[in-house]
């Protein structure tokens, strides 16, 4: 537990190195939603606004920060050159990545908070079922984290090559239905979307906002996240062993 806590607090200390980033995390989502908020002031507030902003944009940030923070998360350490030193300690790559996931979740709560504050600044009350909403967003974050852990393991096994950040982010976003409901996708893509925890996160948040219940989605979200986590954990063990055998620990 102590190693994990030490690593999470390091993640938070990192934010201090570039304080403007923290400002940017607070301001840029707010600026992105501003046109919607202005429209809302002109024409009144409707459910579509909550849907596109609260679900689309917010979860998009969760996806993108977890992708950078966990899926491609060892890059910072690789660039710093500390991976081998870290792994000379009694911890595994899994511990490093779980710490990064927790750090990223905290960062996202901050982003979410800033966005909500912006809503209030524009005089738009968010009539959300708050506990359900926050709970679902956190569960979605956990689901995405599990997925990203498996992705991180693949990155370590096969290197980045064409798996660029943008490509992964765009395809995950499109397939999980961040902007549009996933059921509108062509069938093969829709099938892929059913394998992504984020899809169920988004759908259940949408449903809660529309006044419904979450039903089986929540089970699929948690279950799939857990499956990815377990697969990722296994793959990380393989990757770690392979790096130790080949002498490529810390290479990228």
């Amino acid at each position, binding site marked *: 537990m102590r190693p994990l806590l030490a*690593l999470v607090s390091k993640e938070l200390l990192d934010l201090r190195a570039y304080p403007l980033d923290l400002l940017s995390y607070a301001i840029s989502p707010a600026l992105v939603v501003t046109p919607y908020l202005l429209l809302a002031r002109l024409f009144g507030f409707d459910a579509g606004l909550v849907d596109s902003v609260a679900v689309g944009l917010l979860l998009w940030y969760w996806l993108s920060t977890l992708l950078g923070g966990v899926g491609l998360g060892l890059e910072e350490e690789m660039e710093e050159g500390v991976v081998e030193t870290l792994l000379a300690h009694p911890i595994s790559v899994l511990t490093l990545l779980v710490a990064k996931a927790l750090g990223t979740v905290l960062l996202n709560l901050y982003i979410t908070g800033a966005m909500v504050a912006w809503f209030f600044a524009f005089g738009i009350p968010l009539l959300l079922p708050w506990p359900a909403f926050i709970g679902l967003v956190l569960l979605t974050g956990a689901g995405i984290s599990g997925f990203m852990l498996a992705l991180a393991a693949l990155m370590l096994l096969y290197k980045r090559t064409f798996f660029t950040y943008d490509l992964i982010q765009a395809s995950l976003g499109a397939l999980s239905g961040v902007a549009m409901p996933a059921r509108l996708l062509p069938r093969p893509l829709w099938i892929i979307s059913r394998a992504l925890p984020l899809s169920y996160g988004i759908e259940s948040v949408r449903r809660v906002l529309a006044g419904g219940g979450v039903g089986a989605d929540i089970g699929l979200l948690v279950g799939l996240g857990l499956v990815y986590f377990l697969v990722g954990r296994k793959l990380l063990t393989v990757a770690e062993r392979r790096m*130790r055998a080949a*002498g490529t620990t810390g290479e990228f």
Partner: protein
Amino acid sequence: MITCRGVAKTYVVRERAGLFRRGVRREIDALRGLDLEIARGAFVGLLGRNGAGKTTLLKIVATLLLPTAGEVEVDGIDALREPTKVRRKLGVVLAGERTLYWKLTAMENLLLFGGLQDLSRREARARAEELLELVGLSGFSDVSVEKFSSGMRRRLAIARALMHRPPILILDEPTTGLDPHGVEEVWEVLRSLREQGTTVLMATHNMLEAERLPTRLLIIEEGKLLADGTPQEITARSGAQRMAVLTLGSRPEVDEGLLVRELDDGSLSLAVPVDRLPAVLGQLQADGVHLANVEIVESGLWEAFLRLTGRPFDTNEEEP
């Protein structure tokens, strides 16, 4: 304390053959069956030419690298089967300066790595203060590492490796790139560890360091153990003697076995064992060779290393 039995490591690399063509697969035998026994409290210096396999050996002991064959035990624990347990016993300082988080302060680095060794926050802070004192960085506790000089980073890296009071310390070239003051500062820390009975395994290219700190030296060559003994034993065994290096104005009629080298300015340099100096000087005088300078080379280990690792004093530069 550290035992290696038949440790071998073969790296497989693929050569690059241009943008699209796959290069040939190549195997590099970095270690070829190394047997080694390091006793508790020993301070062992690991010498060897570039690419001899020193870092490879250190990383295998540190569980960062798996050997292709052989067994490694650290404090009685199998390093291949139980790497995590072994890591608790070891402090590891890898080569270079990039073994710390540069954006964090000295204290934050120590607290983080102390945490990774399962120290509580309070224990870690007390230990960190003690160690910053030991490595002479107390005044820089809250300065970020990117603002440090190379020497400060090296000392902080050693402090970091000592957070959990490991019985064994592994160091890869801890003083490379430091000025003599920086080197002395690191040595002071290492000497105090030697006195406290910490077992140390240290790779180095600094012959002065290898002469002064270790109680035992290992020289490896192409992945095999070439020499093992105290610095004095190794120097004596190599047949290296104190040498006089003479700078001459013209080419002398020298004996076989004396080593001549032509310098950039056209003068010649001749290396002579000190015990043969009177005879050689007499000969030079008889031949009327102008003697421009005489220098006595003191570092026995320097020369012993050159002899043992197969490149004696520039012998071949004469022949075209």
